[in-house]
């Protein structure tokens, strides 16, 4: 079927994804590309009765327009249907609106700008190579378990937060449990991380300022009542950065490896021509978009692409689907390392666009550079495929068995 034909049924894998969409369903997870193509062709605003009911918006232009219109689409009702919006554990600045949200972004943004991030380059490269050293002699590994699950935490905790090195193993384990442990154990992982971060903030408040990201969080901003932001808001700024930055970057780093392992021609071109690498990273970010969807709630009766939406209803903006909108990308499911995309909707649009996009890009680019240098013949393990899964919000890769010619360690 061509894109000009309108698809009239969303029946794929035993579920009608037009009238009975479920972001968490296995029918979606197992038929991801096909379902995304189908909604683009026939149902830009799909209905779900899961989790109390929500709409799923997939079109690039609709996701962009809603992302920018925070007056009509509030974040204060939570980022997914199961969030109440009155939760004490609100994430800042994700689950608030301008102008309070704007003040936090202004406070935090300078620590994530390309200029600020550049100073982390050597530290990221050292961490990449330390991780590769741990398995390069083996000739095989599960890339997620051996590499992708570890780099983002190392970068965030040691490079951005400056936590003591001795605390890293505990934090890594807790973050790992929160992000990719058994579902029933994840809340316990988040609680451990939150408790640690609260304690770390209290500790840092007593110390001389270092002029870093943590000091900016501690300085804080004023709320819309003109009061200084309470301590708990600052703790949940830290938790938000972690929640937004760990599993997402793990999926991106897994995507980089999966792409290189399955596209040896592209890997050779990238090895020969470093100038192609930033564009290739951008394409991996687009096709392996980590954010499946994030929610907004209508503040008034409105409509999207002709579909009436009532005040109080939640829409899930599918960044991952928008990033494959055939109206914006030819062969949308394919990675074309020569494609040039002006901005990447995988990071969202408007006031809540990913604050850490440049840090994610730098980790992905540095990992790609070192993989091309040290693991040039990376391939999938014989007869193996990656295992994908997803939640309402994130896409994940659970395992990625790869092999390569064994190499020598470079650090001691």
């Amino acid at each position: 079927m061509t894109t000009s034909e309108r698809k009239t049924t969303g029946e794929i894998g035993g579920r009608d994804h037009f009238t009975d969409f479920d972001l968490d369903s296995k029918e979606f997870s197992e038929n991801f590309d096909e379902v995304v193509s189908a909604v683009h062709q026939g149902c830009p605003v799909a209905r779900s009765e899961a989790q109390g009911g929500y709409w799923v918006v997939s079109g690039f232009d609709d996701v962009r327009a809603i992302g920018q219109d925070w007056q009509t689409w509030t974040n204060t009702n939570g980022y997914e249907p199961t969030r109440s919006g009155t939760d004490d554990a609100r994430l800042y600045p994700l689950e608030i609106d301008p102008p309070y949200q704007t003040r936090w972004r202004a406070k935090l943004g300078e620590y994530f700008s390309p200029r600020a991030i550049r100073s982390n380059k050597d530290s990221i490269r050292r961490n990449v190579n330390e991780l590769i050293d741990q398995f390069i002699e083996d000739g095989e590994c599960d890339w997620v378990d051996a590499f992708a699950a570890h780099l983002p935490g190392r970068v965030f905790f040691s490079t951005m937060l400056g936590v003591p090195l001795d605390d890293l193993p505990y934090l890594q384990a807790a973050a790992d449990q929160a992000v990719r442990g058994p579902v029933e154990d994840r809340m316990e992982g988040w609680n451990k991380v939150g408790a640690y971060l609260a304690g770390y903030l209290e500790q840092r408040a007593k110390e001389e300022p270092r002029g870093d990201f943590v000091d900016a969080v501690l300085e804080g901003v004023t709320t819309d009542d003109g009061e200084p932001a309470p301590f708990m808001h600052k703790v949940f700024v830290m938790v938000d950065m972690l929640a937004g930055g760990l599993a997402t970057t793990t999926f991106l780093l897994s995507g980089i490896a999966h792409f290189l392992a399955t596209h040896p021609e592209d890997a050779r071109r990238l090895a020969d021509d470093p100038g192609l690498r930033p564009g290739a990273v951008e394409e991996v970010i687009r096709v392996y978009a980590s954010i499946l969807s994030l929610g907004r709630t209508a503040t008034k009766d409105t409509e999207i692409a002709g579909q009436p939406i009532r005040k109080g209803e939640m829409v899930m903006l599918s960044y991952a689907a928008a990033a494959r909108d055939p109206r914006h990308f030819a062969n949308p499911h394919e990675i074309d390392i020569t494609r040039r995309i002006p901005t990447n909707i995988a990071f969202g649009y408007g006031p809540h666009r990913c604050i850490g996009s440049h840090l994610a890009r730098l980790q992905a680019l540095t990992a790609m550079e070192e993989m091309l240098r040290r693991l040039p013949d990376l391939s999938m393990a014989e007869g193996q495929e990656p295992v994908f899964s997803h939640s309402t919000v994130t896409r994940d890769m659970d395992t990625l068995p790869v092999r390569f010619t064994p190499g020598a360690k470079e650090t001691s």
Partner: protein
Amino acid sequence: MKYVVDSALCAAHGLCADTAPDVFTLDDDGFNAAAGRTVDVPEHLEAAAREGAAACPESAIQIQD
């Protein structure tokens, strides 16, 4: 109408130039090329300038009527 870009807030997301390419351009690092300056907007581009400013995640672009 004029716009002013706060160079301390611009974080090189590039959404202004993506939304309103006739108004905003980026430097080699992806920052708004007018960061730190006040720029006149021709009348026929005023609506585009407002849209581009609204697209900025950092609210770094202020419109001055």
